[in-house]
């Protein structure tokens, strides 16, 4: 096996085979589930799911309400129940069979005035359901074609000027995919970048540099470390994606947007492709940092300099949304550190031409090659400076150029 792969495997195994790795891996989603679960339980328990009655004195309602027959924690439906008159409705409220009732009197057809009788506030979702129920009934008496379309609104398809990109309302994924890939990229780079940083600094802290360098070349060592720690980050992400996927499968029926989610594989491929050189670029910068600082505490302080620009485009989300081809948006997508997230955001909100994609990919690849070269140089120059931080001049002095 190639020595770089041996280094990669060692780096990978020493993280992944540790109990604390899996504890950390499970703790993050479990923490989120716990927080979300608790807040959901608190919110759901606050919703009064008792039926709401209605009394139709104006004889407006001819279509029966559509009530969700399911029961359970995630059923938020408040059933609508018809009562023949107000006294029956009042009795139901008094007996706790209904939380309140609304009255459509004979003047409703002209004044559209509803009256709701209850001692409790009307839940927001119940109000929407009542509106929908009444709209459905009013439209039922209208003789027109495409009556359902009138109720649901129009459907829109968006096509880019050159016709290369088409999105319709059901393709939420076309917007979501680049954004999700960008978020995942930031997560991976934060995790594997910090592992990589730690791995390089540890070589200094453990004084293992000299032993390593007389066994493998600096390039093999750095390649192995980048690959191994990238693998650790990917394992974490894969685990979480599987977990999210499983959760989506389980709760698909509960969330309408999950039922319409249609993954755009082409967009996914393009988003991932653009991230690859960026990943190498940032990883190599982390490795450079690791080779120039003295210990892990110092490395954590300096890693913010690299991480901050990566996430800055998220703060300018509105700018990307309203002017994705503006100077700032374009500039950020060409600048090496902001490029991955900025490009993903532009891909979400506009159509990037093949030429521009190629330009960004090419630029990122160039930066990646440069940063790997810089990492090798920093490693060679800084590997034996155990208690001294290197500055830029040290990095480019003559000794650093040897290999």
């Amino acid at each position: 096996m190639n020595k770089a792969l041996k280094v990669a495997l060692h780096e990978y195994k020493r993280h992944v085979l540790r109990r604390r790795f899996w504890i950390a891996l499970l703790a993050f989603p479990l923490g989120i589930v716990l927080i979300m679960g608790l807040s959901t339980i608190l919110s759901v328990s606050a919703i009064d799911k008792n039926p709401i009655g209605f009394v139709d004195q104006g004889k407006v309602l001819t279509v029966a309400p559509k009530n969700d027959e399911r029961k359970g924690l995630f059923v938020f439906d408040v059933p609508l129940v018809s009562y023949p008159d107000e006294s029956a409705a009042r009795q139901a409220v008094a007996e706790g069979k209904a939380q309140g009732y609304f009255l459509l009197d004979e003047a409703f057809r002209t004044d559209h005035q509803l009256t709701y009788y209850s001692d409790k506030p009307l839940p927001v979702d119940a109000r929407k359901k009542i509106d929908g129920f009444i709209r459905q009934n009013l439209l039922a008496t209208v003789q027109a074609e495409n009556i359902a379309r009138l109720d649901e609104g129009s459907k829109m398809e968006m096509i880019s000027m050159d016709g290369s990109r088409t999105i319709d309302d059901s393709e939420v994924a076309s917007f979501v995919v680049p954004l999700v890939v960008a978020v995942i990229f930031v997560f991976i780079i934060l995790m594997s970048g910090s592992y990589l940083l730690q791995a390089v600094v540890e070589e200094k802290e453990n004084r293992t540099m000299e032993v390593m360098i007389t066994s493998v070349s600096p390039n093999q060592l750095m390649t192995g470390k980048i690959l191994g720690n990238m693998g650790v980050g990917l394992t974490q992400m894969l685990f979480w994606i599987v977990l999210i996927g499983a959760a989506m499968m389980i709760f698909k029926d509960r969330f309408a947007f999950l039922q319409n989610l249609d993954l755009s594989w082409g967009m996914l491929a393009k988003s991932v492709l653009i991230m690859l050189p960026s990943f190498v670029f940032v990883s190599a910068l982390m490795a450079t940092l690791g080779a120039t600082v003295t210990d892990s505490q110092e490395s954590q302080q300096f890693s913010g300099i690299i991480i901050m620009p990566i996430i800055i485009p998220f703060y300018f989300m509105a700018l990307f949304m309203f002017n994705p081809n503006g100077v700032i948006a374009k500039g950020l997508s060409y600048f090496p550190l902001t490029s991955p997230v900025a490009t993903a955001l532009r891909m979400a909100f506009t159509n990037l031409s093949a030429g521009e994609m190629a330009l960004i990919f090419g630029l990122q690849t160039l930066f990646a090659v440069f940063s790997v070269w810089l990492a090798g140089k920093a490693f060679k120059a800084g590997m034996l400076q155990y208690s001294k931080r290197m500055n830029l001049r040290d990095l480019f002095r003559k000794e650093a150029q040897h290999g």
Partner: protein
Amino acid sequence: MPSITVEHLKKTFGATKAVQDVSFEVRPGEIFGLLGPNGSGKTTTIRMILDIYKPDSGEIAILDGPMTEEKKNRIGYLPEERGLYQDIPVETCLEYLAELKGLDKAAIAERLPGLLEEFDLTVHRKKKVKELSKGMQQKAQLIATLIHEPDVIIIDEPFAALDPVNTQLVKDILMAQRAKNKTVVMSTHQMNQVEQLCDRMVLINKGEVMLYGGVNEIRNRYVTNEVLVNLDGELPQNLNGIREIRDEGTVTRLIPEEGVESQDILAQLMANGSKINSFEKAVPSLDEIFIRVVKGEVHDE
């Protein structure tokens, strides 16, 4: 053919001249001492031999040519800055380092248990490296240096953290390597170990070679007409040609006047009827030579 040839090496770091002009050869089947005071340029020289640093000028050949990635598998190195991965078990750490020296899993499984046993580390093999004492960590690092059966072994202060029992163990191992015709370069300050182990040596001071050659040959170079005697009884008072007499515990050092030979002193003692337990020419120890050379009192010609 020499295993290592170093010719007129020079290396500077900024204004510091670490190595000014160093040349020597190391042959297969010998233990070679690389000696010098702190900051003399020993470690820089070793790092240049191992291609960690490039020399400003001069030539280095190791195993018949310049250093290559392939040759790294034929070299075992115990650096001055000891270092093992602290957070993993000893066995895992040694397996990893052995793999990086080109050994496959089968070869590691065959050799490692024997070496752990030899260095008395078998019971500690599952412990994390950081749980071992300094001496045990050094023994573990020696295993990493030797497990791939290198042709050239370069060790920096191999006895630094070892007790007498383990010092003897390492000495035996180094002698066994010499017997297998391996090349051993040993950098140390412990001159008694050099006297006992090394066949040849080089002494570097301020980046320059001060002494170079066979250990016994160098010691003989500094032999004077002084003698060490151990007598049964008092030293006769009427010895002629003696400039100074020093009591050195079990022996007495006689420092003769110039031109007086040791045989003359022996003849006088015998003529006086002294009962002689031992009589020997006072060959200077390497410690003495080291101090005299470093203080600038003598220089190799």
